[in-house]
């Protein structure tokens, strides 16, 4: 196990970064941001892969592989659906060259 003080340092700094990066988000982007954050915790896939790679017993391996499938659904699906939402926000810009001016005001 890692040094507890190092762990605490990492956690505290990550908490502040997490608070800071989303503190001023417009309500228009709440849904994509929630969905994007949702995709990021799909990184539990890394944990599932490690566990599956170390499983010796077939039962444990089965459970671990289920975890891999679930985590992949979270990770891959999360990023794809977020991209689809954001694609719709972006798609108007080429046809509406003046849209940028109004956008900066918000």
């Amino acid at each position, binding site marked *: *196990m890692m040094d507890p003080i190092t*762990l605490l340092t990492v956690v505290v700094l*990550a*908490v*502040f970064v*997490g*608070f800071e*990066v*989303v503190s*001023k*988000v*417009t*309500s*228009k*982007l*709440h*849904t994509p941001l*929630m969905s*994007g*954050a*949702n*995709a*990021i*915790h799909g*990184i*539990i*896939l*890394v*944990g*599932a*892969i*490690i*566990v*599956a*790679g*170390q*499983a010796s017993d077939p039962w444990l*391996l089965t459970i671990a*592989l289920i*975890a*891999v*499938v*679930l*985590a*992949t659904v*979270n*990770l*891959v*699906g*999360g*990023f794809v*659906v977020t*991209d*689809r939402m954001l*694609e*719709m*926000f972006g798609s*108007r810009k080429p046809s*509406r060259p003046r849209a940028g001016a109004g*956008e900066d005001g918000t």
Partner: protein
Amino acid sequence: MSVLGPGWTALFYLAASVCFILALKGLSSPRTARRGNAIGAAGALLAVVTVFLSAKLENIPLILAAIAVGSAVAVPVARRVQMTQMPQLVALFNGVGGGAAALVALLELGHNEDPWVRLAVVFTMLVGAVSFAGSAVTVGKLQELISTRPLVFPGMPVLMGAVVLGAVAAGGFVVATGSAGWAVALVVLGLAAGFLLVLPVGGADVPIVISLLNAFTGLAVAASGIVLGNVLLLVAGTLVGASGTILTKVMASAMGRGVTGIMFGAFRGGSTAGSTAQSDRPVRSSSPEDVAVQLGYAQRVVIVPGYGLAVAQGQHTIAELATALAARGVEVVFAIHPVAGRMPGHMNVLLAEANVPYEALKELEEANPEFPNTDVALVVGANDVVNPAAKHTPGAPIYGMPILEVAQAGQVVFLKRSMRPGFAGIENELLFDPKTTLLFGDAKDSLTRVLGAVKAL
């Protein structure tokens, strides 16, 4: 394979962590959002490649097959889901992530003797299970498989208390003994707690709960990082936990609610005051031709879209109607309530899909001062977000939520399926106001007929 040494592994994980921070930062601004998401995905890919190259893994073909299965399930669903059903999908993805975290912790239990690590195992299993079951209930509520009304039964707080105590006891046994049996019991109790936590939440508050459970899953993933001694999981999970908590608070305050009020309000009786009964009080109903005349000869029209519009897939028709009115010289804007649709920002996504120009979308604070200068407010499939009960009726479930003040406009036209109350289950006094007219029917049908009539003017 152990191609990468521990130093390189740590560096690549650090790079992936930075990608996730940049992703969240990018997602907070409209111009950088899509790039932010792509950076996040790149970070995830880097992390997954790194784990294959650094850890001593067996069963690699099976793991790759499981990843292929997961992707084969997720990608088509994510690509094809209708935008109206997106909240359910986000909740579902969140739930399976929580489930995965709980399973990972369960399997790691046997490898750890340290009581602190076991405590992290217990936390991951419990929170992951709560998130999984809670998300399942939110999906059920959003799909209306379960009642969207707050579900409470006598003795529920007692049962919840018993489940929590049981979970604490089971968690204590797991920490002390490392027993797999108790660990399974803990997961079952966590699932029960998730169900009991979300059942009492009213339909209109479900988006907030999804965001909260998203933060929960983040925390479970962070704890799994401690279990596995993996800094990337710790950082990514903590980031999501922290940003998810803030986002939940921001969303709740956009609805004028506190998070504790949303989660436990039903037990105080406040949120259960609504009713789904239809009212038989008289209203003024109208025809598409009359609505077309009202709109076509107005100077300024504000359209208030709601979930009914999304359900009817009417966003393209309403965009056409706005264009047709603009061609007649009518000034048309859309007033978007922060929680219009089923999730904050959902309606912006739907109207963006229909190519409604960004400048025509006004947020609540911009839209409200303009209603007194507006001739006609056209409310399409929305109810709760314009319900004056939020301002005037202290007992109402939505009391305190900021509303779009359409009552200030010269005339109000509602396009509604029926007189059934909205998602929050409360009647809207505005429907009975003398300056209000109603056009009943499916939002898309009504809009198509109004559009035809406007073009014929």
